[in-house]
């Protein structure tokens, strides 16, 4: 094989047994890698109904046959398992350096089962894997644990994926962070790792060179792509995701005061220019990425001390602890980001939960006494940080809040439910779908909960240039951002399949046009140059993306999630308040329900979103007949 070793590491943390297993070539051709290959193993090996925090639960890390090759943005890896937050399918991606290093260390993926009696970490170096004690690291902040492991392994080029206190305490908002900056953030996969007493996975490959079918062609493709990309004006490298603040504010979908408004009066305080002028120390990047969209910030002004080792807040985090909480200052936003990184907590979930608390507090539904004495008005950044710290440590009221909205609502009262901006118990990301109708589907439908990276966004697809980028997958015209017609649903389906495919091969969405060098059609050519496989085509990537939607659907059906979970909070069906171009916009419920049914039909699922036998045959998933 080229590009892939075809090697999977199995680690049973109960017994300490470590084995290496072959991944047959046919599995790469059927599932590519990343999220879909991981899901294949999860569906085969884990029964429905298992407690995600039990030793019987699997936790799977997976890359693909192009991870670590020279193409831009081929750095991402997927972590898959059952989510303790949603009770359904958990999938989360991250970039950085860990994924490629796992490949260099000789593996595409790792399947973890069982539970270690005591805290441990896994070290993989040049094909050899070892379980080592992490008792001295348990309870340490991320940087301290990270540095200690590198010192112990005596190799500064080791790449480490870790959990922090949030994961150790099995918070449903716990994430797994590699190299202190790159988070597999959503759905509580850090809690699954913590439930196994696994602190970290350290990977290092010193000698492996990835074999490619046509290495010269690979390099030629990369060179041409980057040259052509540099000829087009682009603000993404300069501002990174922080350009999102101004862009979403201008179209009026910048979530503000817990998604009550779509514009924030003080948005300039949070915008990319203020970020660059006041707190940015330098930019950073992922493996082989020419964009360098990562930010590193430094603050030391007596009140806030923020270490650039943890990177800096991206757009989502800035929304979550900024406009969503009514906070108009990047310093407490950055401090919040750091707290989350230090303890391994998902910033989106934490920030949007705090915003919910704020709205409930201001409406008299949650009292100061119930919040350990904290007055949680919008804009109170000091108390936002105190409450966040409690959440990170799972202390006091924080322990309730990090179990997710369902637990918090049960605790504080049903009347708080209408203010919870979540689907499948997972908080909304930083774009109000009342102004981006395709995102309404991206929040309601995915098995892994609301996901702003599920598809390309509506305003891009509403421009001639944006739509033209997707001609290769049969999108032939721009559609208005607020359109939710069957044609938009069809375009959503095709786009979603593409993005699922991206996660199967581990390519960063930002490295694809309009932001990055890859064109859609060049992805197939690149994969074929790496592998020499005819099946490594754009067409097959899309089909496998479709397959992923059905596979993850089946996972959720087995866990008891149904059509009732494919919905939106009531607020989305009411007019967006405040000013801006989307003021007054709302999702029409009847149109939305029709769109959901249309999506099911396009997928060959029945009216209740259950995949038909035809669907399973179409997707080569007949091995799942009778399994749900």
């Amino acid at each position, binding site marked *: 094989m080229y590009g892939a070793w075809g090697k999977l590491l199995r680690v049973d943390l109960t017994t300490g047994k470590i084995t290496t297993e072959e991944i047959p070539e046919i599995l790469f051709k059927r599932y590519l890698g990343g999220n879909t290959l991981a899901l294949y193993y999860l569906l085969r090996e884990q029964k429905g109904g298992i407690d995600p925090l039990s030793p019987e639960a699997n936790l799977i890390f997976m890359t693909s046959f192009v991870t670590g090759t020279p193409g831009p943005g081929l750095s991402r890896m997927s972590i898959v398992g059952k989510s303790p937050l949603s009770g359904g399918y958990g999938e989360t991606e991250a970039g950085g350096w860990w994924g490629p290093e796992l490949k260099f260390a000789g593996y595409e993926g790792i399947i973890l089962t069982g539970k270690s009696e005591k805290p441990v970490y896994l070290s993989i170096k040049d094909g050899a894997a070892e379980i080592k004690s992490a008792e001295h690291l348990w309870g340490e902040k991320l940087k301290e644990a990270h540095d200690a492991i590198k010192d112990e392994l005596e190799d500064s080029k080791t790449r480490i994926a870790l959990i922090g206190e949030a994961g150790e305490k099995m918070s449903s908002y716990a994430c797994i962070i590699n190299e202190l900056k790159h988070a597999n953030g959503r759905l509580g996969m850090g809690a699954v790792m913590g439930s196994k007493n696994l602190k970290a996975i350290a990977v290092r490959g010193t000698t492996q060179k990835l074999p490619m079918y046509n290495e010269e062609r690979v390099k030629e493709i990369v060179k041409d792509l980057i040259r052509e990309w540099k*000829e*087009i*004006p*682009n*603000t993404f490298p*300069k501002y990174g*995701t922080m*350009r*999102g603040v*101004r*862009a*979403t504010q*201008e*179209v*009026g979908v910048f979530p503000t005061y817990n998604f009550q408004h779509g514009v924030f009066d003080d948005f300039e305080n949070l915008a990319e220019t203020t970020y660059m002028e006041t707190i940015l120390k330098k930019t950073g990047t992922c493996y082989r990425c020419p964009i360098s969209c990562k930010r590193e910030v430094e603050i030391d002004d007596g009140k806030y001390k923020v270490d650039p080792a943890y990177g800096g807040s*991206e*757009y*989502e985090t800035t929304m979550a602890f900024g406009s969503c909480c009514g906070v108009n200052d990047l310093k407490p936003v950055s401090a919040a980001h750091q707290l989350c990184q230090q303890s391994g907590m998902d910033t989106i979930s934490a920030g949007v939960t705090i915003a919910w608390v704020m709205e409930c507090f201001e409406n008299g539904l949650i009292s100061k006494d119930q919040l350990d004495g904290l007055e949680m008005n919008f804009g109170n950044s000091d108390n936002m940080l105190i409450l966040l710290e409690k959440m990170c440590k799972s202390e006091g009221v924080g322990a309730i809040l990090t179990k997710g909205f369902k637990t918090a609502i049960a605790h504080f009262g049903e009347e708080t439910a209408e203010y919870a901006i979540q689907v499948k118990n997972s908080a909304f*990301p*930083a*774009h109000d779908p009342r102004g981006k109708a395709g995102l309404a589907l991206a929040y309601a439908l995915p098995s892994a909960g609301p996901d*702003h*990276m599920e598809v*390309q*966004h509506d*305003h*891009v697809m*509403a*421009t*001639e*240039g*944006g739509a*033209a980028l997707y001609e290769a997958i049969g999108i032939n015209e721009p559609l*208005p*951002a*607020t359109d939710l017609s069957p044609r938009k649903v069809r375009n959503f389906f095709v786009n979603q399949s593409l993005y699922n495919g991206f996660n199967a091969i581990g390519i960063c*969405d*930002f490295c694809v046009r*309009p*932001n990055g060098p890859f064109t859609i059609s060049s992805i197939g050519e690149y994969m074929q140059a790496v592998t020499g496989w005819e099946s490594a085509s754009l067409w097959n990537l899309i089909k496998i993306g479709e397959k992923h939607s059905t596979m993850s659907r089946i996972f959720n059906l087995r866990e008891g999630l149904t059509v009732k979970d494919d919905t939106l909070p009531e607020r989305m069906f009411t007019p967006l308040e405040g*000013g*801006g*171009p989307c003021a007054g916009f709302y999702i029409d419920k009847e149109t939305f329900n029709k769109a959901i049914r249309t999506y099911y039909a396009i997928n060959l699922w029945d009216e209740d979103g259950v995949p038909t036998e035809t669907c399973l045959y179409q997707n080569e998933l007949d091995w799942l007949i009778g399994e749900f």
Partner: protein
Amino acid sequence: MKVTVRGESEFGLPKDFEEVELQNPTIESIMDYFHVDPKIRKHLFPIVNSRMGKLSQELQEGDKVILQSPYSGG
């Protein structure tokens, strides 16, 4: 006719609202005026008087136009 325009300075557009006088102002003529690179034009999304606009839109006296490259992501 006079309209005011702002956008991303990296594309040649004024960062703050700037008044321009054009014969028959359209989004296209605004982009001509500011010498916006042809490669990026079709990717820009217009917001006119705080409402969603279209590239083909004709403008009126006093219109306020924002031209932005839309954002998607995290």
